[in-house]
Structure formats: structure tokens, C-alpha cells
């Protein structure tokens, strides 16, 4: 499996700026990206981090402000993937999304929306052409192959 992120945990000199700027750390004192990078460098068993890594908001502030271009958010993304590959539990919403994706080619189902005047609207009622997105034929096959880990 090739690397899909741009993380460089080996460059970290623990200045802590990722945690200083972290959107989540402000609200959850236990969530500290600098600690996650440090633990990975120490080589702790990744299972330890399986729960906490899902709290990342993907705001990329740690990636932007890190003076050593460590990209902690990318590291956390990689840890998430490894956790899923090990069969670890992940937030339900992503499972739902994958299901919708395989059926429609989009991450969300198109639904009717009630506007401020309590009118129920959708694309058709607004005179808009249908979206050209879809999940048909070979595209659908490839998606399910990748999801099953066969590619």
C-alpha cells in the first residue's frame, strides 16, 4: 500500500504548535496532535490510539503551522486507515456514506428540503435538470473492488 499522505513524523521536534493551533484540543484537553506524533515515533502499539484519532476535525491547522512540515493531520488519517484495516470500529456515519456512495456515486442522498416558507422543494420542483452523477457499470464495480480491498 503506497503512502497516501504527506506526513513526516520523523521531522518533529515537539514544539507543540500543532496542539496550540488544534481546533479539537481547545475543547478536548486529552486530544493532542503533538502527543500522537510523539507516540508514533516512540513506536507504541497503534491500537492505543484507535479511539482518539477519530476526533480530528481535518481543519489542517497543524499541517499549515508546523515549522517542520510534519503534517500531523495526514499522519492521523493514515492511522485511521490502519485502524479500519485492523477491523477496529469507526464512526457509523462513514459506513453509511460508503453505502450511499456505492448506490448513487454521491456521499449523500438527494432529499426534499423544506424552505423558510415551509415549501417542500427538490430539483424537479425548482425546474433544475437532474444531476449527471451516478454509480453505474464499471465504475460501480471498481468502487466495490476497492472497498473490498481487492485493488
Amino acid at each position, binding site marked *: 500500500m503506497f503512502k497516501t499522505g504527506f506526513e513526516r513524523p520523523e521531522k518533529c521536534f515537539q514544539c507543540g504548535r500543532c496542539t496550540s493551533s488544534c481546533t479539537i484540543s481547545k475543547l478536548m484537553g486529552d486530544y493532542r496532535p503533538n502527543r500522537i506524533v510523539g507516540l508514533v515515533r516512540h513506536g507504541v502499539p497503534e491500537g492505543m490510539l484507535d479511539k482518539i484519532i477519530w476526533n*480530528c476535525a481535518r481543519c489542517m491547522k497543524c499541517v499549515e503551522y508546523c515549522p517542520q512540515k510534519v503534517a500531523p493531520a495526514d499522519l492521523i488519517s493514515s492511522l485511521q486507515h490502519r485502524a479500519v484495516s485492523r477491523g477496529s470500529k469507526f464512526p457509523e456515519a462513514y459506513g453509511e456514506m460508503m453505502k450511499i456512495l456505492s448506490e448513487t456515486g454521491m456521499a449523500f442522498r438527494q432529499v426534499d428540503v423544506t424552505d423558510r416558507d415551509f415549501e417542500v422543494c427538490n430539483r424537479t420542483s425548482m425546474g433544475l435538470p437532474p444531476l449527471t452523477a451516478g454509480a453505474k457499470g464499471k465504475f460501480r464495480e471498481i468502487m466495490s473492488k476497492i472497498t473490498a480491498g481487492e485493488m
Partner: protein
Amino acid sequence: MKSLGTNVRELEGWSCCGHPLKGVNPKLWLYLASRNLSLAGEGRLLTVCNGCYLSLKEAQHLTRSSGEAAEWVRRALSIEGLEYREPEILHAVEFFYDELKGREVARPLKGLRLGAHYGCHSIRGSFEGFDKATNPGMLEDILAMLGAEVVRDYPGRLDCCGATLMAVDPDMGFTLASSKIAQSNEAGLDGLVTPCPYCYEMLDSRQETLAELKGTRPMPVLLLQQAIGLAQGIDGRGLGLNFNMSPVDRILKGRE
């Protein structure tokens, strides 16, 4: 778009860009993103969502820098008979900045104190963006071109709206969105403009929930295209203002 005379069409056969799935299945993300790039060919691909912008930019950056990733992408695409392509990926902000530069708008947003909410992924990520991440100014420039009184800096301007957290911990998401609205109120803004539909959903659509759960004082929130449309004199319904859950009528009132 018509009012600006631009020619834009929907990408035929597009799919989700894979952005929300990067952590769960990065190969799927890479495939979905690269497939969209392939369908776009060598032209200009306009994204109207921050998440898509980040997703496509990073996918392009990855395939350019990793031979292995590029190899895999080519194979996956070839099954459907598609080829790897490198379109120019444009974010709505830079696109509209170029379209509006040097133009007079029909009904300038005079007297409106507006602030920008870029949304994380338009400015931050492992790619060469369209603006400086620690000090972006293009969106404020657009608002100035639209005739508004622009607040160029305020505490929390570059903060996250919390949209991603709805999948994991909705309460934390609400806390973040509420904080953004509160900071905009603190800065004395008449309205907040964002280019990202995800952020728009957090900051606008959920304002009633925010008021209930966090006691947040309401703040009008507009999607960038809505702000531009208003400045072009386009009718409210035509801009989907009937879908805004934040008090946008405050903005509309002054303009009657």
C-alpha cells in the same frame, strides 16, 4: 454565472470526490478524486466546495509526487477506459475574483459590514493554494469589489466551523460553529460570507439548533455565490435565499 457572462457546465458523470472517506479508505478517495480529474480532461475544473477542492488538489499532488500512486491510479482508471488527466483545479474564490476584477456590479452591497469565512480547506492542506494560508485576502477583496464594507481581520477568522465533526461528535461540532458565529457577532459584522457549502450548512442551516443548544445570537450567513448574486441585482429566490435559515432578511431589508 449568466450575469457575469461566464460559460460553465456541470462535469458529465461526476461522482463524490472522496474527501470524507480519506481516513477510512484512502485508495477509494484517490480513485474517486482522480476519476473526476480524468473526466475533466485538460481544461479548467471549477470546484464549488472546499472539501472537493482539497480532495482534488491533494490527489493531483500525490499522483505527481508518488510514482506508485500514479501507477495505481492509471490502472484503476484504465478499467473504465479512462486516462489520467491533469486539469487546472480552480476554487470558486479565485474563479470569481478573476471574473469580478475590474467590473462594476449592478447593485453594490453598500453599507453592509461583511466578513469572510474561508473554511479550512480552501486555504490549508498539502498543496499550493490560490492564496496565502496564514494571511489570505482574496475573499475580502471580492467582498470589497461587491461594494461592501469589509472587515479584513477578526479573532477566529480562520477557525474551523466544525462540519466534519457531525459524523463523530455532533455536540463538539455545534460548539465550534457557535464559536464562529459568536466571534462574528463580536466583530460587529452584518453578515458572514463563505464559499463552502459544508460550512454554510453548519453556520446557516443549523442556526436555530445553535440558538437552542448554545444560546448563539443569530448572524446572517451567505454563500459566496448568493452574495455575488445579490450584488448583481438577482432576485432572492433565484439565489436560493429561501433556503437560508439565518436571518438574511436583515440584509435584504436595507436593499429594498
